[in-house]
């Protein structure tokens, strides 16, 4: 609490740089062979050398991820509303969703590839399947936790169930929805990368696989860092979107 805001502002950079410095030092001190753990200097070298394929493939992964994510947003919102509106459906679907969530999506990718062939479709679908769950759960939870008083205000006016949903349910669920997007986009990203490494000629997942086959371990790590950076950027974008769209929720002290 005594930290000045300036320190807090720069803390992410300080910690990130610190991490790389320690990593480099460990590699040098213990003379770790590069195929075991390449030092950051080599990794950055690989990044500079292969910047073209890294950027190209990152973009491919980005597009795939976004398409899958948008699908998940659409269906997740609809299903979440449907589930949250009825306690029976909520009770019935919830365990199925948990079970589905417990299945590693790597195991599902081959099935998707068999169904839809190679390329973008299975990657999009994997991204969709994996990011779908938190959206549905959050939206349903948002609906299920509406304060009865808010409902009563409308019921006392003789509002129909649909009215209540439109006027209170959906707006009230929105902060939960936007809150789930941060998690969902990270998962979507993980999903499309997984799928790319199983069946695709493009994307960061494929790039890393190729690099591994050619024993270019620094490039594998460069891929990992590219993934991390892309993940952080997308997370930040969703955090920004959340703030923009449902700032009222934070400002009014509603929803944490």
């Amino acid at each position, binding site marked *: 609490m005594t930290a000045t805001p300036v320190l807090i502002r720069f803390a992410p950079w300080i910690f990130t740089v610190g991490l790389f410095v320690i990593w480099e030092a460990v590699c040098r001190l213990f003379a770790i*062979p590069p*195929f075991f753990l390449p030092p950051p200097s080599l990794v950055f070298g690989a990044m500079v050398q292969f910047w073209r394929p890294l950027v190209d493939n990152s973009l491919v992964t980005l597009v795939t991820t976004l398409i899958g994510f948008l699908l998940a947003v659409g269906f997740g919102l609809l299903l979440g509303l449907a589930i949250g509106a009825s306690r029976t459906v909520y009770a019935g679907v919830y365990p199925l969703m948990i079970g589905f969530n417990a299945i590693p999506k790597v195991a599902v990718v*081959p099935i998707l*590839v068999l169904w839809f062939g*190679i390329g973008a479709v299975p990657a999009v679908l994997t991204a969709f399947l994996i990011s779908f769950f938190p959206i549905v759960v959050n939206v349903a939870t948002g609906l299920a936790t509406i304060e009865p008083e808010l409902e009563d205000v409308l019921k006392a006016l003789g509002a129909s169930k649909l009215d209540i949903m439109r006027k209170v349910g959906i707006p009230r669920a929105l902060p939960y929805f936007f809150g789930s997007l941060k998690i969902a986009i990270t998962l979507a990203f993980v999903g499309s990368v997984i799928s790319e490494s199983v*069946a695709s000629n493009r994307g960061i997942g494929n790039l890393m*696989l190729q690099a591994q*086959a050619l*024993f270019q371990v620094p490039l594998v790590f460069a891929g990992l860092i590219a993934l991390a950076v892309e993940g952080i950027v997308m997370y930040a974008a969703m955090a920004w979107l959340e703030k923009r769209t449902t700032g009222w929720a934070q400002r009014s002290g509603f929803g944490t």
Partner: protein
Amino acid sequence: QTPVKFSLDWKYEGPAAPFLIALDKGYFKDAGLDVTIDTAGGSLEPINRVASGTYDMGFGDINSLIKFVDANPTVPLKAVYMVYNKPAFSIVGRKSLGITAPKDLEGKKLGAPAPDGAWAQWKIFAAANGIDSTKVTVENVGFPVREPMLAAGDVDAITGFSFSSFINLKANGVPADDITVLLMADHGVDLYGNAIFVNPAFAEKNPEAVKGFLAAFNKALKETVADPAAAVEHVTAANPLVAKNVELERLQMAVDQNILTDEVKANGFGAIDSARLGAAIDQIGLTYEFKAKPAAEAVFDPSFLPSADDRKVM
């Protein structure tokens, strides 16, 4: 007892039989070794594993080993026993999809997993057969979906080990007479195949262990070749999921095509012809830019082999 961590190239299937026999029948134990055998997901994986020292010895593709040694000269991995005298690398296609000869691949779709050993030799194969590889559409397909996609006609041919892909295709309902197996070794790709190799630090510290391992393996390999049907029992014991007849067929193919070649019949198991290996390294150089091209002696060390007598084919 010297502990030895050993990495296979693939799962417990027919061709793993000699390793499992040596373990089951105590040949390793008799040689004073406490061996653990682990599976892997392709013939590249064991190279990294042994190089890192996590595993002491491994079974994998010597051609990839050559590239690895070139890329990482600080870790002089060496092969010590050649198992697949002729590599199982092949292009597998379907006649009904118009694949009967190498040239047919032009204008077609080839499915190839990026970490596949056969795929790594594709450029040599294309060059040797005058295939314009720009006319071939290559799709990265993971191991689990490779054969099903060929069976479904999503691709026209795949790269793979002959015995794996052929049998997997049959399991996917493709009739045997529809399958074309183009063994690369029969089409101008004159390489060696999978070998046993050893971590250099381990070899230096435990030369007797390496020798003992190879002697035990050699004995088991001879038994396998003599009676594949009995050998495959050890596979089914280790892996309850596999079907015996399938693995026997697989093993039989490996023995016939890859292990028991004319060269082996003449010179015995495990050894290499260093002129042929030198030529193979040259051939790799056609498609791979060496930093410093290694000599045959730098990648294969025959000093741990059992005596020529012991290695003779009966």
